[in-house]
Each structure stands twice: as structure tokens, then as C-alpha cells.
């Protein structure tokens, strides 16, 4: 019957890879060759991108706001650090997964507090949990190293084959591969029936439950998954920098994360990645121009983005490339960023 194949075709359409997406990842991979001297900053961007991807899963898809996402980043970071420091798990990839799972357990346990109540309650609860963990990390300095952080972390080679080098080349490839794999997983999740139910919950939870969606269970599930992602981002931070200090839990980290996601846009997964690139580049740029007042300029950019609207900015940015494509290939514009609702 044609109606069924129609339904199937349109239902899968959302999950199909677009040319712009493939171009995005080719570009990301080719950065390794384009900027061979900038591995450290690029790794920094990748970690932030993964961390923001995590926030996008709960904020962009399920509508859970959080001002304490650094809690999971921090737990992942310290877990990875302690695992390596005490030689509990020496192989980085396994340690990475274990650290992610530890953050995931914390995410599951705290999800019950977070799903209750509305946005303001959630902001306060998530913020509170992150502050609490920061205080705990400071209090138990015999384990965490307190304000000095974990000292003397030495990373073993990845899979026993690839040693971390001082230029950060290994760390960059390692982080990029982890980001890509977790992105694929996130992409699967958001295009599944589960992902669809999240979008419905974000829109109108009452209506979702009237359709038969177990709202709380879904929110707990995605919050737990997001905690895993944030934990992995934190563990990558420790593994690629051989550092873990109290600022992994810092409020600024959670707040910056929100900025990054707003810059990139919520609810289409690439927002976190694009936001991370833009945020770090702006930070670099403004720090060179005005080392002291760069935050002022970031703030200004944010205000402009929100006021002008991302959709219009996208149109301006893509106007040039699309013009070239039309001239060269004689086709209609092919580069487009899928737009979601405003954050």
C-alpha cells in the first residue's frame, strides 16, 4: 500500500543524513591537517562541544533547564583522574567509560529531584547539587587534593598503542573520535520514538501523558543519559590535560555551557558543536584584543544574537556560500542549517 510507504518515508526523513551534515564532519576532521599547531585549543573545543551536546539533550529536547551541569562534568573529571592516579583502571578508553558510568549513576539518583517542579525549581536544584559537590570535593581534600587538585596524573597509552604526546595530537584525535561516536548515539536517540516523545514532553507534558507517554520515566532516562555524556566530557578533560581541580565543578562552567548552547541554538544537536566553536573562537579573539574585558564582548554578542534572532544570522552567514554554489553548480541553495525553535 502506498500510504504505508509514504508514512515510512516521511517518518524516516528526519533521520536522514543531509549533505551539510556530512560536510560538517569532513570539515571537523580536516581541521587536524589545516591547523596542526592548534591541537590544544581544538581539543578544548571538542570537550566543550561534547559537554554542550549533553545539555542540548536535556534542554533542547526534553526542556529540562540546568544551571549545575558541571556536577556531572566534575564527577567524570575526578573519576577519570582518580582511576588513573591510583592505577585502578589504566587503559584510558575503559577508564573513560567507567567515569561516564559513575556520572550516570549520579545523574540517575539526582534526576528524581530534578524532574519535580518547574523551570525555576530545576534551576535551583541543579545549581544546588553542583555547589554541594564542589564543597564536598573541597572538604575531602585527602581524596581530591582540595584546592591544589589531583597532582601527578600520568596517562597510559590509549588501547595500549597510542601514547598521549605533548603537542596534544593524540588527545585531539581521541577526543574527536569520542565526540563523533557519542554524537552518532545522540542522533539515534533523538530520531527514535523515545526522542519523539521527549519533544512532545518538552512541548506539553500534560498532553504527552494523555497520549500515553510515561513522562517522568522518560525525563529520568534522558537526564541519566545526559549525565553520562557530561561525565565523559569531564573525563576527557582530565585525560587530555592530566589535571583535575575544583573548578571542574565551578558555577561558571555550568553558566558558560548555557551561553554556548544559546549561541549555537537548541534542539538540533549541532547547536552545541557550532556554539562551542564560536564561543572558543570569540574567547580567543576577545582575549587577544582586550585580555581583561573579553567577557564584556561575549555578553554583547549574546545580546545581539538573542535580539537579532538566530534564523536571520544564519541567513546572512549562508548567503555568501549559497551564492557561490548557485553560480557554480546552477542549483538552488543547498547549505542550510536546520532551524529549531528559539531557545
Amino acid at each position: 500500500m502506498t500510504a504505508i510507504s509514504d508514512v515510512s518515508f516521511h517518518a524516516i526523513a528526519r533521520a536522514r543524513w543531509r549533505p551539510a551534515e556530512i560536510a560538517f564532519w569532513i570539515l571537523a576532521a580536516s581541521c587536524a591537517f589545516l591547523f596542526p599547531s592548534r591541537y590544544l585549543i581544538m581539543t578544548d573545543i571538542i570537550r566543550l562541544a561534547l559537554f554542550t551536546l549533553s545539555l542540548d539533550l536535556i534542554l533542547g529536547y526534553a526542556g529540562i533547564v540546568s544551571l549545575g551541569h558541571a556536577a556531572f562534568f566534575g564527577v567524570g573529571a575526578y573519576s577519570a583522574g582518580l582511576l588513573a592516579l591510583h592505577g585502578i583502571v589504566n587503559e584510558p578508553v575503559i577508564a573513560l567509560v567507567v567515569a561516564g558510568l559513575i556520572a550516570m549513576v549520579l545523574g540517575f539518583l539526582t534526576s528524581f529531584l530534578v524532574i519535580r517542579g518547574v523551570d525555576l525549581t530545576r534551576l535551583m536544584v541543579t545549581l544546588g547539587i553542583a555547589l554541594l559537590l564542589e564543597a564536598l570535593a573541597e572538604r575531602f581534600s585527602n581524596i581530591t587534593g582540595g584546592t591544589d587538585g589531583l597532582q601527578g596524573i600520568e596517562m597510559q597509552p590509549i588501547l595500549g598503542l597510542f601514547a598521549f604526546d605533548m603537542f596534544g595530537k593524540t588527545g585531539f584525535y581521541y577526543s574527536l573520535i569520542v565526540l563523533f561516536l557519542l554524537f552518532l548515539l545522540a542522533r539515534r536517540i533523538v530520531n527514535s520514538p523515545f526522542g519523539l516523545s521527549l519533544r512532545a514532553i518538552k512541548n506539553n507534558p500534560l498532553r504527552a501523558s494523555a497520549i500515553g507517554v510515561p513522562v517522568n520515566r522518560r525525563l529520568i532516562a534522558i537526564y541519566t543519559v545526559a549525565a553520562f555524556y557530561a561525565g565523559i566530557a569531564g573525563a576527557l578533560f582530565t585525560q587530555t590535560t592530566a589535571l583535575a581541580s575544583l573548578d571542574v565543578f565551578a558555577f561558571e562552567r555550568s553558566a558558560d555551557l548555557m551561553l554556548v548552547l544559546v549561541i549555537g541554538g537548541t534542539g538540533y544537536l549541532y547547536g552545541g558543536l557550532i556554539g562551542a566553536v564560536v564561543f572558543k573562537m570569540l574567547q580567543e579573539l576577545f582575549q587577544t584584543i582586550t585580555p581583561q574585558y573579553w567577557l564584556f564582548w561575549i555578553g554583547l554578542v549574546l545580546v545581539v544574537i538573542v535580539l537579532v534572532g538566530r534564523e536571520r544570522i544564519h541567513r546572512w552567514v549562508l548567503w555568501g556560500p549559497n551564492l557561490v554554489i548557485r553560480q557554480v553548480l546552477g542549483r538552488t541553495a543547498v547549505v542550510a542549517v536546520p532551524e529549531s525553535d528559539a531557545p
Partner: protein
Amino acid sequence: MTIALETRGLEKSFGGLKVTRDLSLKVEQGARHALIGPNGAGKTTVINLLTGVLKPNAGRILLEGNDITDLPVHKRVLRGLSRTFQINQLYADLTPLETVGLAVSERLGRGGDWWRRMGTRDDVNEEIAETLERFHLLDVMNELTATLPYGKQRLLEIAVAIATKPRVLLLDEPAAGVPESERHDILAAVAALPRDVTVLLIEHDMDLVFSFADRISVLVNGAMLVEGPPDEVARDPQVKAVYLGEAADA
């Protein structure tokens, strides 16, 4: 006759205000039952109690003989009690395909499926197609719900409820605000609901109520005033006084 939906001594108050008083209602299997009442009679509260959005202060709710008073909203839906919404609460930025797909996925227990993409399960696709076709939504299935004409949106509202395969369906003012030209489609869709689905219609529109219902309950100030077949209710002096009187003059 078996009873599909029953309430026993349902009570609900907000603070000192009693909005539902000792409400005992029996809806027979396969019935076309209408619940009417003037504004502020507490009809919406009754729906919220039945669907589980509100918890009653006292009383029980039974679906096909099973006590569902303590079940959460989504579990009642899976047991076969669905509703439509009076005010538009559809998902504006989902398509009809996605909206119906969501309901079908959840009913078939596929809603938690996080690994398979939408549209890759034949049983789900088949049911989506069937539902969309029945409510004349196939041609607009890939358009955003927000852009559909209002009449189509009301049809989608009923389609989503039917996609959950309800045994008892609560219709909350299905034709409210629909322009005259599109009204016919809605009425036809309501009339064409399968006979094995028990329908409880909550409605203002007297034409619709009297053309559709085979039994009518009149709610006033949160309590049941009269219950009976349409002609009896229409003749009842009490009902005329509080409710139909105004309508007859208009």
C-alpha cells in the same frame, strides 16, 4: 448491560470550594453518553478527575470494573481511557504523522525504543497510515500542525485519541470554535466512531448533544441534577429552568 466507566461518590474541592459533589455516574458499554451543564458546572473538573490529572478527595473511578482511581494519566490511557482536548493542545511543531506516530508507538509499547528510528517498524507504520487515512489527514501528514486549517486540527485531535485505541473516549467539546464550513467533517468523524468505543461527550452545543447522545447527564454546581434519555431530559422542568431555558430563548 456492562458498565464501561463508573464513578462512585466522587468529591473534589479546591480550598473551601466544592467543585464536584458526590458524583456517581455510570456509562454503559458502547453508549453515546453526553455530560452537559451550564458554565461553571464543573465539567472540566470531572474530565480531569476521570483522566487522572486531578486526584479526587473522595470516591472511586472504575474502568470496566477495575479501580483506576490511583493510576497516573498515562497508565489510564494504556488501559483504554483516552480524551480529546477542548482548547487546542496539539503539538504545533510536530506533524500529524509524528503526533499520531507518537500515540501508536506508545500504545504498541515502542515508545521507549531509543535505538530504532521512527518509521522503521511496519506494524507502527501501518497503524499510522490507517488512522491518518480514516481522518482524511494523509495529504497533510508531513505539514506542521500549526499550519493546518482549524477543522483539520480538530480532526487530528480525534485521530490522536483514536490512535491510542480507547475503549472509553472522552470527547471534550469536539466542535468548539470550528467554522460552519468545516463543521460537517467533525460531526461525521464523531458519528463514525466505532460502536465498540464507549463515548462520553462533554458539550455545550445542544444540536450536537441531541443528535448524538442516547443518554444525557446534567451537571449543575458539581452535582448530578438529572440523568436519562434525551427526550426525558429535554422535558425535565428542572433542566429547562437551569439550562435549556436560556438556549430555548436564544
